[in-house]
């Protein structure tokens, strides 16, 4: 009953009187899977929290609490470690986020060591977080690190994980037809050249055609494949049968082995405490030549200078070293662009592998023009092994964060805290395209430094005013200084010396690097009071006022208010035997927010000079010197009840938040001279219900079974946009699909062309194909799930425990560019096979092939026109490729066995040995998106949710871990 939770600014509160929603997850629950990223492991474990993790190695995690609130701003929760905000930027470039290639560099919260986490407290609503200032409007993930215990403690973990792809999330290819775009080319769908020099023309696979709507496979037909033009190949100038590849693109993925080691020492005496931890996490991806190595050291100590004055300090150092992160989106650096969209089903991946490793050359199946030596270059696609071994990226990030503080207890009711905290990291990202690749060789480097300093001074009062009435007071100031500097440099026109990746190796004039320097200052003061009556009534009020450098001087200060109350009504019902506790909470809060850096004053861009001509340009976005602070208003009501000696309980919350007057760079008609302008506009409402239920159906000395259920239903609606605007595009994607904030719709509508409908039926035109709207603004989906939930079961029998998590998402949509293009290239299984007449669907109409699209003609009669299925078939509208994103996943499972003490009792030093076996993403029990993982996305952030382009398959991980306690 007296459970204590840590709330905003490190204030400890009895859970029973907490007037707002907060849910705690133990560190053990997020470190158990040894994944190196504690936060993807939160999925399904906290109500109100939506985690979205793509399948890339070390990719970014989208962490949103209670729905997307800001139309274009940051919607990610704030991370606070032991009271210190830790930056969680997602710095993926816009092109990456809109699927135009690039790499997902992950988010910075991945630098937090999962093994140092004691627990994670998720503060969901603004009333709980208002004291943290504007960044906390999206909720706070508050991390308390492990605290040292008396004596010396040592914990060692050593784990090994095997990763492989889930083939249910990868295409199944048709095996009946090979290369081509439904064209006869020279002869029967083949090129015709004399390859072997006998003076007779030979059949050659149309290597430049990156589709599989070509000639029907025929094992008796000998043709010259791409390797007939590779002098190192055993098939040089030799034909091979015309058959489907034995090894399809799934062969490209490997089974990889990751490992994780960790040691943590801690100890405490009367004078103070210390802890020292080290973690090394080596993550190997399922693509060849991909890995991510993290080294993390953390040290923390407290020292009691006097009985009243305590000094504390904490230092965390992390170094992340990545190589071969997966290329994303529509780009030659992403092998899935081909595997899912542009491929020849006759190409054997293993043969491509052998070809590359024979002499490390770019021997592609996609020769530009095999009839002549100068045509033996890739027209569109490199050899995939060349892509991952030559055109790989690398990156590293070194980070230090920590604090130093002095805690002074002036009297038994008054204490002061002074603290300086620093978060500083430097990162380097290097990307390369080797000489010999399709397109210009290049080298790009991105250097970025981020620093945040917080200076805090707080006074705390905790005094019983009467026997029944307790008063807690808080008064403080916070100065925050952040600086972000970056430099993006790239070569132009190719590279001079092959294999040398430096800016100076540029063939063309070196473009000026793009530099940024973005300092921000926010000064705030705050105060709060808490009145508690007899431990069953409590009333909180907090106030904060911030002044931000990013707003116009006249408008740069803004206030936050929060008022919350709770009533432990079970206090009045002590005679009800089955009721263990019952509490009602109610709160209201407003949170202000400032503008992003550099949105007030207009400046010019400077394109690279044209010879001796200096160029300047107006930027694409118009700044605005009349911006005002934006505001989020939040209301919440909650009920917590526990029954049967706490064996059963629930916590349910209903909330409504409105984020109004948002500072957004609205897209504007380019006829204004700009394509965006900063304005105050908009109102986005999130309404939702969060429910957590826990139960212990069985509890005996030897056996127990507990269930935790979390369920979240968030309803999101755009209530207002700029002026009369009805729509605000957030991201435009290839093929004319966009993600938008649309008036009266949930945030994040997917828009594109759709079917023309008549009386609920799709209309077919006179050619026999579906009619398609000319407008691209039809809502064809939305990215928000109807609800999400997780069920976690734990069984314990003596020393053995078994836990598993089923993670569910219901509803919402995902749009697939992969499916959109694959229709035109005939890769997938359903593009071949038999039609309703039992004939091969790709046969000509005379030969009984083709299909009849279900629908009606313009005059309402059922369509009876049979049409051919080939590369020239009319494309279905984008609406056809918007899929239901629901899933049910066996997200994680683990079995832990704690060795009985009798086994190691002779070795006095050892206090415990745990052996565990665990798995992540073990089984997708249900999904509606074919050949892909509905959760896969391009990056975290607002734009890329709900979009798939060159999607990666799910990585399934199974591992084991040994934990020793000394």
């Amino acid at each position, binding site marked *: 009953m007296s459970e204590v939770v840590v709330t905003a600014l490190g204030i400890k509160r009895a859970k029973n009187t907490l007037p707002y929603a907060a849910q705690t997850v133990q560190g053990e629950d997020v470190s158990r899977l040894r994944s190196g990223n504690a936060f993807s492991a939160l999925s399904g474990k906290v109500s109100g929290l939506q985690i979205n993790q793509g399948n890339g190695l070390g990719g970014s995690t989208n962490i949103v609490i209670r729905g997307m609130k800001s139309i274009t701003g940051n919607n990610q929760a704030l991370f606070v470690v032991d009271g210190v905000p830790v930056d969680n930027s997602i710095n993926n470039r816009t092109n990456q986020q809109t699927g135009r290639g690039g790499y997902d560099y992950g988010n910075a919260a991945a630098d937090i060591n999962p093994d140092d986490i004691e627990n994670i407290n998720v503060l969901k609503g603004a009333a709980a977080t208002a004291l943290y200032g504007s960044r906390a409007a999206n909720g706070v993930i508050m991390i308390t690190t492990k605290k040292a215990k008396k004596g010396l403690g040592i914990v060692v973990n050593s784990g090994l994980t095997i990763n492989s792809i889930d083939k249910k999330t990868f295409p199944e290819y048709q095996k009946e037809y090979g290369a081509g775009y439904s064209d006869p080319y020279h002869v029967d769908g083949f090129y015709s050249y004399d390859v072997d020099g006998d003076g007779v023309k030979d059949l050659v696979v149309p290597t430049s055609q990156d589709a599989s709507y070509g000639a029907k496979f025929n094992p008796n037909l000998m043709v010259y494949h791409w390797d007939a033009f590779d002098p190192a190949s055993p098939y040089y100038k030799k034909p091979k049968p015309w058959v489907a590849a034995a090894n399809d693109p799934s062969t490209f993925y490997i089974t990889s082995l990751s490992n994780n080691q960790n040691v943590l020492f801690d100890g405490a005496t009367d004078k103070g405490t210390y802890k020292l931890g080290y973690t090394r996490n080596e993550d190997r991806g399922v693509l060849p030549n991909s890995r991510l190595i993290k080294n993390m050291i953390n040290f923390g100590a407290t020292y009691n200078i006097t009985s009243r004055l305590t000094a504390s300090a904490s230092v965390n150092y992390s170094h992340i070293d990545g190589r071969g992160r997966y290329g994303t989106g529509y780009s030659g650096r992403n092998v899935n662009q081909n595997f899912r969209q542009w491929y020849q089903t006759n190409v054997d991946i293993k043969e491509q592998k052998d070809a590359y490793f024979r002499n490390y050359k770019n021997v592609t199946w996609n020769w530009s023009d095999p009839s002549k030596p100068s045509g033996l270059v890739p027209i569109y696609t490199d050899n995939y092994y060349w892509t991952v071994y030559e055109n790989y990226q690398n990156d590293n990030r070194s980070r230090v964060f920590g604090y130093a503080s002095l805690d002074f207890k002036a009297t038994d009711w008054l204490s002061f805290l002074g603290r300086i905290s620093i978060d500083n990291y430097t990162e380097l990202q290097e990307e390369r395209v080797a000489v010999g690749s399709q397109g210009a060789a290049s080298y790009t480097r991105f250097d970025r430094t981020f620093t945040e300093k917080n200076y805090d001074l707080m006074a705390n009062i905790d005094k019983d005013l009467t026997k029944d009435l307790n008063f807690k007071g808080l008064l403080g100031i916070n100065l925050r200084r952040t600086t972000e500097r970056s430099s993006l440099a790239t070569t132009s026109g190719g590279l001079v010396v092959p294999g040398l990746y430096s800016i100076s190796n540029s063939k063309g004039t070196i473009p000026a690097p793009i530099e940024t320097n973005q300092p921000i200052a926010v000064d705030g003061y705050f105060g709060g009071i808490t009145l508690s009556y007899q431990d069953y009534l409590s009333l909180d009020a907090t106030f904060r006022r911030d002044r931000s450098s990013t707003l116009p001087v006249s408008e740069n200060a803004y206030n936050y208010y929060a008022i919350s109350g709770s009533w432990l009504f079970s206090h009045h019902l002590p005679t009800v035997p089955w009721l263990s506790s019952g509490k009602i909470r109610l709160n209201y809060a407003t949170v202000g927010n400032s503008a992003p850096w550099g949105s007030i004053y207009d400046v010019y861009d400077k394109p690279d000079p044209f010879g001796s001509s200096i160029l*300047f340009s107006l930027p694409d976005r118009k700044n605005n010197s009349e911006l005002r602070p934006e505001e989020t208003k939040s209301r919440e009501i909650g009920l917590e009840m526990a029954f049967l000696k706490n064996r059963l309980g629930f916590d349910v919350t209903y909330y409504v938040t409105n984020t109004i007057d948002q500072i957004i760079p609205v897209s504007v*008609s380019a006829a204004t001279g700009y394509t965006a302008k900063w304005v105050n506009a908009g109102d986005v409402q999130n309404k939702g219900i969060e429910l957590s239920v826990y139960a212990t159906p069985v509890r005996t000395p030897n056996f127990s079974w507990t269930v935790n259920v979390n369920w979240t239903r968030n309803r999101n609606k755009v209530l207002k946009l700029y002026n009369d605007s009805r729509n605000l595009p957030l991201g435009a994607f290839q093929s004319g699909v966009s993600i938008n904030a649309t008036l009266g719709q949930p945030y994040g509508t997917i828009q594109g062309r759709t079917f023309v409908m008549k009386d609920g039926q799709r209309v077919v035109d006179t050619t026999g194909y579906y009619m398609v709207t000319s407008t691209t603004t039809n809502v064809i989906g939305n990215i928000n799930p109807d609800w999400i939930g997780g069920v976690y079961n734990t069984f314990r029998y003596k020393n053995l425990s078994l836990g598993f998590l089923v993670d569910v998402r219901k509803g919402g949509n995902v749009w697939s560019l992969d499916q959109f293009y694959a229709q035109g290239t005939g890769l997938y299984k359903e593009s071949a096979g038999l039609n309703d007449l039992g004939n091969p669907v790709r046969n000509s109409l005379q030969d009984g092939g083709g299909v009849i699209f279900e629908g009606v003609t313009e005059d309402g009669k059922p369509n009876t026109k049979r049409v051919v299925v080939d590369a020239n078939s009319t494309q279905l509208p984008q609406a056809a490729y918007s899929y239901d994103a629901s899933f049910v996943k066996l997200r994680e499972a683990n079995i832990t066995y704690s060795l009985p003490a009798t086994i190691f009792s002779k070795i006095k030093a050892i206090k415990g040995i745990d052996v565990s076996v665990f798995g992540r993403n073990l089984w997708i029990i249900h999904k509606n998106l074919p050949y892909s993982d509905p959760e896969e996305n391009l990056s975290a952030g607002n734009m890329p949710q709900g979009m798939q382009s060159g999607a990666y398959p799910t990585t399934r991980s199974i591992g084991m871990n040994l934990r020793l306690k000394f």
Partner: protein
Amino acid sequence: MRKILYIAMPVLFLAACTKDISRFNKETKKPSAVPGAALFSNALKGLSDGLANASVNVNVFRFTVKHWAMAVYQDEAQYDFNTRGIPQAWWTRMYRDVLNDLKESARVISNDANLDAAVKQNQLAIIDIMQVYTFNILVNTFGNVPYKEALDPNNLFPVYDDAKTIYTDLLKRLAEDIGKLNTASASFAASEDVLYAGNVAQWIRFASYLQMKMGMMMADVDNAVAKAAVEAADAKAISAASQNALFKYLPTSPNTNPLYTDIVIGGRADYVAAEDLMNPLINLNDPRKSLYFGTNNAGNYAGGVVGRVNTYSDFSKPSAKISEPNAALVLGDYAETEFLRAEAKERGYTVAGTAEEHYNNAIKASILYWGGTEAEANAYLAQPAVAYATAAGGWKQKIGFQKWIALYNRPFDGWTELRRLDYPQLTPAVNAKSGFPNRFPYPGNEQQLNGTNYTAAAAIMGSDKVEFKLFWDKY
């Protein structure tokens, strides 16, 4: 309590230091004031890059006019402009990247108190000429477009103006600009003016060429206006190849011709000659055949079919000449001006010379520009199918056909003249997604960002369809 003060002091000190925190928000890596001429130079480059480009994301008119065909990917050749958002890219380039910088350039120059008044007048006139040039492109691409209310970031919902009204105003502005240009004074410095190195006399030639060209656009709808503009322009318009408006790209990246970047550096093998152009080049022994195109793998000249898959090895590719890194982009030239003069004569306007003389000059100028010889040009012209007197059809057909050939690598102008003169009569692309595009559809995001005005503009045409003929396109 003293200790508390010790802790508090540094914090209070910091608070005191940062009274004016707005200084944090100052941009330290970008300028807040720049020379106006540099904005003008940038606009010229943005305009040229768009007109020169062959990327399927930027400029697809080479397929529309059937000079080129695509090897594999046929969407754009089949008039599918929306999948890659080409109208949006084109619109954005013209308004945001060209016109807005021109407008800003004029603003900065107007406010420059240190600039000589006569020089300022020349500079402002030149900037205005380029604005007219760019609006001319917008009108001829889309029809009604925002004009009066355009380029104002305080009006985010600009009204679309009637195309003909815009055109009339543009012609008026152009006449005034020509009047303001004063050869006695300097204008831009050579490095600022990539077209004419600040030569005001050349700018008068170019502006008059533009006046003649835009005047002629009106010929089928308002003959009096057309006649007046063409006659006023004749004497001053471009009358020699040395007066051509050329944006001369540079030999090194990143300032090479976009075709070089796309075809040579990009290594794409997408573009082949279209049979529609290749066949007459072959049949009429056109000396430009080998200057426009290379051969196929077998060493022959062959054109592919627009809208159909074309095996790359079998067809002629764009010539090495047009994809040289420093190949120039033509913004207006002698050949085109001479075709206009020939047409003017045929329309009965009072200009010097005869239609035949101008027709011959135009073709000869085109051949010479591309690197042919005088003798080759004469031989070409001597053929009955080319000679003005004996070539097939009426003047529209004769001029239209030859102008279409001469406007090679100027596909936007080629498309405009094809629509206006209606010759040569090309068949639609194979598997065309619509009828022949007489205009671009409005950008997809105008529906969302400027919906009310978009809807009104589309309603005038019935709907926002590509087959709708623009106001000057009577036939």
